[in-house]
């Protein structure tokens, strides 16, 4: 049987999301490396896979999928549905709510901080402190809600870990390397939740492919 293939660069938090789900589900896969610097994602053969010219792309049997959260849902529905709430309507509805929270409340703020504080300097630019400040404040308010939530249940969507938790791992892996990790450190339940997430074997394995400098070599 043809193995599952993921196209992309593993340093991307979006590619990492797909890899994390495959690792959690114990699915054998092949990571087909692509070069961002060489513009592989804009070549016709990649645009045929993803017309938006982004990574990751997943091939599973006859399916070609893009959008990391759609890939995550597909992989888990097929190979580990308990991470989506199983067949229970109330449980899966709660997972879906917190997946949307990750996508629309958490990621925009945490992603902006990572872009300014990690990526910009690696590309030779300086962080836009106004953008950083605005997004740190947004993220603080979001994480205060998480802190309260994690006082009611062990994980975001209930007492069982789910994709709602896992989906946070990739961007947080980079966020926690910035000075703004203090936001998380100051919230005891969020901190404990993060540490547990990062300690999962699948997360450790994927993190090995995600060096904090995004694989850019440091200037001497």
């Amino acid at each position, binding site marked *: 049987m043809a193995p599952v293939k993921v196209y992309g660069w593993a340093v991307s938090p979006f590619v990492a999301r797909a890899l994390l789900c495959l690792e959690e589900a114990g699915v054998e896969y092949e990571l087909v490396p692509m070069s961002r610097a060489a513009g592989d994602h804009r070549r016709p053969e990649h645009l045929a896979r993803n*017309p*938006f010219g982004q990574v990751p792309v997943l091939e599973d049997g006859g*399916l070609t*999928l*893009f*959008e990391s*959260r*759609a890939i995550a*849902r*597909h992989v888990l529905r097929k190979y580990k549905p308990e991470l989506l709430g199983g067949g229970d*309507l*109330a449980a*899966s*509805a709660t997972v*879906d*709510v917190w*997946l*949307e*929270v990750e*996508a*629309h*409340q958490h990621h925009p703020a945490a992603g902006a901080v990572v872009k300014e504080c990690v990526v910009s300097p690696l590309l030779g630019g300086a962080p836009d402190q106004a953008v950083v400040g605005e997004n740190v404040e947004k993220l603080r308010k*979001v994480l205060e*809600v998480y802190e*309260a*939530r994690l006082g009611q249940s062990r994980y975001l969507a209930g007492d069982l870990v789910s994709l709602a938790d896992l989906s946070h791992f990739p961007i947080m892996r980079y966020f926690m390397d910035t000075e703004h990790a203090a936001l998380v450190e100051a919230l005891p339940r969020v901190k404990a939740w993060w540490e547990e997430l990062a300690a999962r074997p699948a997360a450790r394995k994927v993190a090995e492919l995600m060096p904090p400098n995004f694989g850019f070599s440091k200037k001497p």
Partner: protein
Amino acid sequence: MAPRKLYGMPLSPNVVRVAAALNEKGLDFEIVPVDLRTGAHKQPEFLALNPFGQIPALQDGDEVLYESRAINRYIATKYTEGPELLPTPSAKLEVWLEVESHHFYPHVSPLVFQLLIKPMLGGAADPVVVDKHAHELARVLDVYETHLAQNKYLAGDAFTLADLNHMSYLFCLSKTPKADLVASRPHVKAWWDDISARPAFQKTVAAIPFPPSA
């Protein structure tokens, strides 16, 4: 049985996203006003429903949900009458649900805010913001144009949640000077003409308290 309660402002496209799904499924509901202009969304009674303080929230029996796209998944999964909005297998549908969320929405939302909502609140559209997002939305809709040349609906042959989740913002966009972004793309236009003619959507827009055109 207590009616379903959809909390929010009847003009909010995120609220209308849910109203559209409820109407496709033929479900009764009432809109419970949460007026953003008075800060009602930040009051404890509403935060008890959605701790992130945003509309909509849906109360359906004992369930309280927020995030319009999660609410719509719940409606599509729970209620089997009416069209099958989330058929399985659904990998292609899942892709286009995410495309709405991460390619379409980030550009159509600020456009609608600048061109429709801000003027209603007494402000003026920011042309720099409008141009930036119109340009980006045009590129996104070019991808849709190619896709819809090969697919009648986003997930294939049938209308699904992937199409439905676009409709409230497409409707609002059609009321702005940027309506041509859709009208100028034949397959996108044909798709919009088809889905907006659905009786359930006609019912949904009839309930939107649009101010009369100038």
